[in-house]
């Protein structure tokens, strides 16, 4: 149903500002010239004083990036001009572990975003990435004592070379796709997490990613290893200022969940409207282990992201829950991939999307049950909500089953806000906008309620804000 004119007027009065759209003037230590070539890759590696093998890997990746064509499916990528981007911006020369030592301008940015406050309240550790580098990283002392590693990926390469080399690039190979190759070539920052055997990190670890400069490419690299019987919850958040030019964010996230371990990876993506968000996320899950991707995409111009789970051991469990919100000029091409290759594995995908004012949501999924993966169970459900007549929703799920004993079910629905629902709520005294907002919130609640409380509140508020702004 269309939002009535009267409501529109009230809504127009409410500010239509993207809350995180401010920018900060900073003096970066180093900023790579626009464009991408071997020289820039060498310079990045030199600045980071990396070992030889990493430089060679970067160079090889760059070749692969140039060779691979842009994907022909998904969103419109032709407008990205790779020659205009800055691929590396170094805001300061070291990582701080004390918040008070972070440079003033950067501190102000994160203060505005509420990052250190959050840490004091309910986090076991925080990282903050500004442009290309992590500028701040901290972890509770008890966890450090237990052997938990939570570092910037760059630092981890220096501090734990053996551990790093053992796991880096094992889940997402350099040849995987064009944007993974780009990440390999110019990666910088991101989090490296190692949780030792039977260790539980009870409070979430959080990393906050901020793009501040114009025409910026951010390529963080995250690697999480949960050793046998351990558990960890990692949360990432991302925002950027609004520019008329495009920025690119292309991350690679690799997760290894060993026997009996559990990892939850939560994303609250709220990039500004000029950011292309092209991310490769993948997890290997072994015997009795459990992986949960909780993926909320509110921002960006175009997001192409399909978190994947490979169930490689018996009784492994995988779950992908996502919520996408697309409004004017936005295309959220998101989805989920699950590969069952061991017996008694189970998986669940819940994808919800809300489209409004010409926004477009696409769900693209793949579920594969290989021969020999006996008694596997999988359930996929996709629900789309269209708020007005210009929005669009697509669903492209693929299911491949080669195993007789598998049980697979899939369902998808596309619906609008029904007049009956509106009538019910309004007859109970709710205004039109409150009624729309209530219905949308009710639709999104199954996903939102799985977030830690503070984030759930924030996301609820965000969706309300998104619902009330941009109604032109």
């Amino acid at each position, binding site marked *: *149903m269309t939002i009535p004119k009267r409501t529109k007027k009230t809504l127009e009065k409410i500010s239509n500002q993207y809350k995180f759209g401010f920018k900060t003037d900073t003096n970066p230590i180093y900023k790579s010239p626009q464009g991408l070539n071997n020289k820039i890759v060498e310079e990045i590696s030199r600045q980071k004083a990396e070992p030889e093998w990493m430089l060679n890997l970067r160079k090889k990746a760059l070749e692969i990036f140039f060779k691979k064509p842009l994907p022909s499916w998904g969103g419109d990528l032709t407008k990205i001009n790779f020659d205009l981007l800055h691929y590396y911006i170094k805001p300061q020369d070291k990582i701080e572990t004390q918040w008070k030592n972070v440079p003033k301008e950067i501190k102000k940015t994160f203060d505005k975003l509420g990052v250190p406050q959050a840490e004091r309240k309910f986090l076991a550790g925080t990282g903050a990435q500004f442009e290309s580098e992590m500028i701040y990283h901290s972890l509770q002392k008890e966890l450090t004592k237990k052997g938990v590693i939570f570092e910037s990926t760059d630092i981890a390469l220096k501090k734990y070379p053996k551990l790093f080399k053992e796991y880096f690039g094992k889940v997402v190979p350099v040849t995987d796709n064009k944007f993974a190759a780009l990440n390999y070539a110019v990666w910088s920052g991101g989090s490296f997490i190692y949780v030792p055997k039977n260790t539980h990190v009870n409070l979430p670890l959080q990393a906050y990613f901020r793009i501040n400069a114009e025409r910026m490419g951010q390529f963080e690299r995250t690697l999480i290893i949960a050793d046998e019987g351990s558990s960890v919850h990692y949360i990432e958040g991302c925002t950027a200022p609004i520019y008329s030019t495009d920025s690119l964010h292309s991350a690679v996230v690799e997760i290894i969940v060993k026997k009996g371990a559990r990892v939850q990876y939560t994303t609250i993506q709220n990039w500004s409207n000029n950011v292309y968000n092209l991310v490769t996320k993948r997890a290997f899950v072994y015997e009795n282990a459990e992986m949960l991707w909780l993926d909320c995409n509110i921002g960006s111009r175009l997001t192409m992201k399909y978190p994947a789970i490979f169930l490689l051991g018996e009784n492994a469990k995988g779950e992908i829950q996502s919520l996408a919100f697309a409004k004017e000029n936005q295309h959220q091409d998101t989805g989920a991939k699950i590969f069952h290759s061991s017996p008694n594995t189970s998986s669940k995908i819940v994808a919800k999307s809300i489209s409004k004012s010409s926004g477009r949501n696409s769900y693209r999924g793949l579920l594969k049950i290989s*021969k020999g993966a006996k008694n596997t169970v999988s359930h996929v459900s996709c629900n*789309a909500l*269209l*708020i*007005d*007549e210009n*929005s*669009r*929703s*697509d*669903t*492209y*799920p*693929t*299911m*491949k*089953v*080669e*195993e*007789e*004993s*598998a*049980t*697979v*079910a*899939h*369902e*998808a*629905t*596309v*619906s*609008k806000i029904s007049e009956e629902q509106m009538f019910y709520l309004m007859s109970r005294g709710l205004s039109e906008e409150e009624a729309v907002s209530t219905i949308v919130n009710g639709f999104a609640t199954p996903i939102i309620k799985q977030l830690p409380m503070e984030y759930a509140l924030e996301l609820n508020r965000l969706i309300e804000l998104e619902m009330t702004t941009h109604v032109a």
Partner: protein
Amino acid sequence: MKKSIMHKPAQKTIISDDISCMNTFTNDDQPLTIVAVLDKGWKGTKTFSLNLKNKNKNVNFFIIIIAKNSEEFSFNTEVIHEAPNTKSHYYIRSILLDNSKVTYKGLLSIKKTAKSSESYLSHHSLLLSQNAKVETIPSLEIEANDASAGHSASMGKIDDEMMFYLLSRGIDEKTSKDILIKAFLEKDFDKIEDENAKKILDEKIEKILKKTLK
């Protein structure tokens, strides 16, 4: 009191054992039901495209696949709703034996002009052999918000509980299995209005199953 008479256009039902019957489509506003019972595979992929340009057109497709040996059933269907108040339903059920393979891609597309349209697709498969393979891609592209669309798909084996129920009532294993397979294939037939057609279909499926499930 004046009696209002609802005029209901006659429901045309076509039954065939060849998938090309999916092309039997007329550009009028007559409701149409097509049922295909397929027990012979083919090589390559067959594509059936359908444009709903006439208002109020209502089409129903029922496809029953009984796949055996090394036969392959590969087909795509596509329906594009252009006119308002159009309806399309695809009900596809397949059972797979031996080394057979079913590959199906179904697209439902509702354009902005197709207000109040309804489109639904389901593909349910029963895997009866370790070497059978099934691939399903049900897709949706919805541009009208005043539409309702959905799809569902499932793949699985014969439900243990249902088997147990029948066995516990003294029915032997083979008969129990046959009953469940037939019931699985005919589950959507309650949506066919033509009673006579239903009877013909039931006999047809019974005959094929007798031959196939030895």
